[in-house]
């Protein structure tokens, strides 16, 4: 297993953001953590990356205890987060040049190919890039050193459909054979790339398994409404009873 979490807890005072989470990410899989905003996905990823310290429990990444992750392990982990703070006054080209020496396995050809494919302007300052461009740049930086594990924290958040497709395509082309841990608040976003999925709610994992397991265990409900029905709230009682049925299955 590339990532293994065992009974992970993270508490802030009386509030437990992560409550006894256990899961395992097999090698070569694309493992999606799916859950609503505030469910604890980002906290969980930060615990795994040793950015936060767990209150209880243990985790291992690439066979190393998460609390002992240092530069040698980080040389093999690519990380992209929607709220990553980048040196805004640095030019894109300079940022790549800055990162290169830190990664012994940095592949210049792959970097050039990713920069061309994602159309990253080398002369532009990072602070002048759009949100989508920043994410594309962070993704290129995370892939250019051919990491063993790629961790993506809400990589598609705030992207329009076109950029999202472009990022997904760029990512998929490079992700073959790579182990990926990705968090998202929309299942539809990760459905076409994930091989494994775990649903996170209120800091707990409610379900985990392969995508085919999910399809076997889950049920799809489709509702088609006209504008008038939606406008006058006629569908509200139906949604309420659907939610009740999900909470209290027969």
């Amino acid at each position: 297993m590339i990532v293994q979490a065992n009974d992970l807890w993270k508490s802030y005072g009386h509030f437990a953001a992560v409550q006894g989470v256990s899961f395992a990410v097999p090698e070569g899989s694309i493992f999606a953590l799916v859950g609503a905003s505030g469910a604890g996905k980002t906290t969980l990823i930060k615990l795994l990356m040793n950015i936060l310290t767990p209150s209880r429990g243990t985790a291992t990444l690439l066979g190393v205890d998460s609390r002992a992750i240092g530069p040698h392990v980080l040389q093999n982990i690519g990380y992209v987060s929607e709220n990553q703070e980048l040196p805004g006054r640095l030019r894109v080209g300079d940022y790549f040049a800055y990162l290169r020496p830190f990664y012994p396995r940095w592949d210049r050809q792959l970097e050039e190919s990713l920069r061309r494919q994602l159309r990253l302007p080398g002369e532009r300052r990072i602070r002048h890039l759009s949100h989508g461009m920043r994410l594309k740049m962070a993704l290129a930086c995370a892939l250019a050193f051919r990491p063993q594990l790629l961790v993506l924290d809400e990589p598609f958040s705030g992207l329009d459909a076109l950029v999202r497709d472009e990022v997904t395509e760029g990512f998929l082309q490079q992700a073959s054979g790579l182990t990926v841990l990705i968090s998202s608040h929309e299942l539809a976003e990760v459905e076409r790339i994930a091989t494994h999925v775990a649903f996170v709610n209120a800091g707990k994992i409610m379900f985990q398994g392969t995508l085919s397991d999910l399809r076997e265990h889950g049920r799809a409900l489709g509702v088609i409404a006209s504008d008038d029905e939606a406008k006058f709230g006629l569908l509200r009682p139906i949604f309420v009873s659907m939610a009740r049925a999900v909470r209290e299955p027969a």
Partner: protein
Amino acid sequence: MIRHIISKDWKLLWPLVVLVAVFQFLLGWLSFRWGYFGDDLTARALYPALNIAWYVGIVALIVAVVHQDAIPGISQDWLIRPIERGDLLGAKLLFVTATICVPMLVMDLRRPPVLLPSKSFTCC
């Protein structure tokens, strides 16, 4: 690795470094104009203000260089990069030494032996 961190900080902060160095050069020049008995009125008028500006510049530069890779927070880029904490600390210390202390030393060595207010006869 220290070299790469310093190089990155230089690319980001060179305008501030140049500004502080200019202040320092001007202070040296004013102290030269000051003369033995503070005859130059322009130098007497400008020196205190420029001295304060220089101190403010030094503080701003130190704060800026530390904030390029800030310690508090959980979103900083350096947290997920293979950077040794010792290297980061060393790079910041070296940057401050190279951009503040070295020019200060150079100006002190080149400064003619004039009597500044703090070294006037009245304090002896």
